[in-house]
C-alpha cells in the first residue's frame, strides 16, 4: 500500500511539479521521467478502469507519455500537470475504446480487483470497496464511462461532454442517476 519512493527521496525533498515541468519543457528527459513516475500510478489505474484491461491501459499510457513529452510546452499552468495528464489519458483511452473491435473479450476489472486484494486489505475496506466495484458493473456502459471520468479522472462535465459527444447537462443527469444506482445496489435502497 505504500507508494514507491519519489526519485528525490535521497534528499527528502519532493521537487515541485512546476520545476520538473519547466525543465522537461527545456528538454530535460530526466525531469520528464520524474514527473511521469509521480503521476503514472494514477494514470494507470484510471486507464484500467476506463478500458477494462491492463494491456490496453499500458498501450494508452505509452501513447500518453509520448504525447505529453511533445505537448508539455502547451501546458499553461504547470501546477495543473496532474489533471492535464489525466485528460490526455482520457482522450487516448476513449480513442482506443472507440476503435476496439466489438465482441473482443476484455479483463474483468472488478474480478481482477477482488482477486488481487490481500486478505488484510479486504478485511478493512474490502467489503465496501468490493461492493462498489461490483455495483459499477451493473451500470450501462456509457454511465460507467462518465462515472469513471468524473470520479477517477477528475474531468469536468464540459470535458466529458466533448469526449462523449453529448451535452454537459446530459452528463450531469447521467452521473446523478449513476450515483443513485450505485447507492441502490450497495445499500439495497428502495427508490
Amino acid at each position: 500500500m505504500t507508494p514507491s519512493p519519489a526519485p528525490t527521496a535521497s534528499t527528502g525533498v519532493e521537487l515541485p511539479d512546476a520545476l520538473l515541468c519547466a525543465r522537461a519543457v527545456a528538454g530535460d528527459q530526466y525531469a520528464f521521467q520524474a514527473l511521469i513516475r509521480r503521476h503514472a500510478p494514477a494514470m494507470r489505474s484510471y486507464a484500467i478502469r476506463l478500458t477494462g484491461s491492463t494491456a490496453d491501459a499500458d498501450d494508452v499510457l505509452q501513447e500518453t507519455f509520448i504525447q505529453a513529452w511533445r505537448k508539455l510546452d502547451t501546458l499553461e499552468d504547470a501546477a495543473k500537470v496532474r489533471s492535464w495528464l489525466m485528460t490526455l489519458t482520457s482522450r487516448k483511452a476513449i480513442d482506443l475504446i472507440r476503435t476496439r473491435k466489438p465482441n473482443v473479450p476484455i479483463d474483468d476489472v472488478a474480478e481482477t480487483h477482488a482477486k488481487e486484494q490481500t486478505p488484510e486489505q479486504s478485511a478493512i475496506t474490502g467489503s465496501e470497496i468490493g461492493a462498489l466495484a461490483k455495483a459499477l458493473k451493473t451500470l450501462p456502459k456509457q454511465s460507467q464511462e462518465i462515472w469513471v471520468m468524473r470520479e477517477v479522472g477528475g474531468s469536468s462535465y464540459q470535458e466529458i461532454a466533448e469526449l462523449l459527444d453529448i451535452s454537459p447537462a446530459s452528463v450531469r443527469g447521467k452521473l446523478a442517476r449513476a450515483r443513485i444506482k450505485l447507492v441502490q445496489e450497495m445499500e439495497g435502497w428502495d427508490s
Partner: protein
Amino acid sequence: MNTHIPLETLSNWLEDEHSGNHSPQHLLTGLHIHHCPTCTQRLEALQRLERVTNDLVTEEENKQASDSSWLDTMLSNLVLETKAGRSIPLTAHHELDTLTQTEGSVIAAIRRAGESLPGALVSRCRLDGDVEAPRTPINVEITASVREGSSVADITRELRERVRKELERISELNVEQINITVEDMHSFDIEQATKNLKDSPHAP
C-alpha cells in the same frame, strides 16, 4: 414520497454543495433536507458513496504505486524524441565530409557544464544568432537560478566561465557574449534533488 426531494436532485445538490454553487433554490433545498429525516438519510447514503469512491480510487492508485515494475519496463522502453533544433556545421578534415552537430546537443552540454557548478541551476538556454553560418558571431542566453545565500555575482561569473570553456571544447561557435539572467533563487535541498535526477537508478 412526493414531499421528498427527488434522488437526482439530491445528488446534484451534493455536487453544488461541493462546488460552492449556493443559489437561493439550493439553500431552500438544504433547509428541507435539514428538517426531513428521510432526505437526510438519503443524503448520508450519497455521502457514504463519495467516501467509498475515494477509498476505491486511492486504493487502486496505491496498488499501482506499490509495485512499479510495470513502470520501470514502460519507461525503459520509452523513446522520446530529442529536440534537435538547428544543424551547426563543423570543420571537416576531408573535403567530402559534412560534419554537423545539433543545437540540442550543444544546449545539453551548456546545461551540464553550467550545473557542474555548485550553487547554479540552468533553467533555460538559447543560442541567439545564425548558428548555421560558420563563424557568424552568436550570443548565448542563459536563464539561471542561484542557491540562496550564495553570491549572485560570483555564481554568474563562474557559470559564464564554465560555459565558455565547454563551448570552446565541444563546438566551433563564434560566441560573442554569454548573457546570464538570474530569475530565481533555490534552496540547497532543491538543488541536490534536481541534480540527483540524473543519478536516479531510473534515469534513462
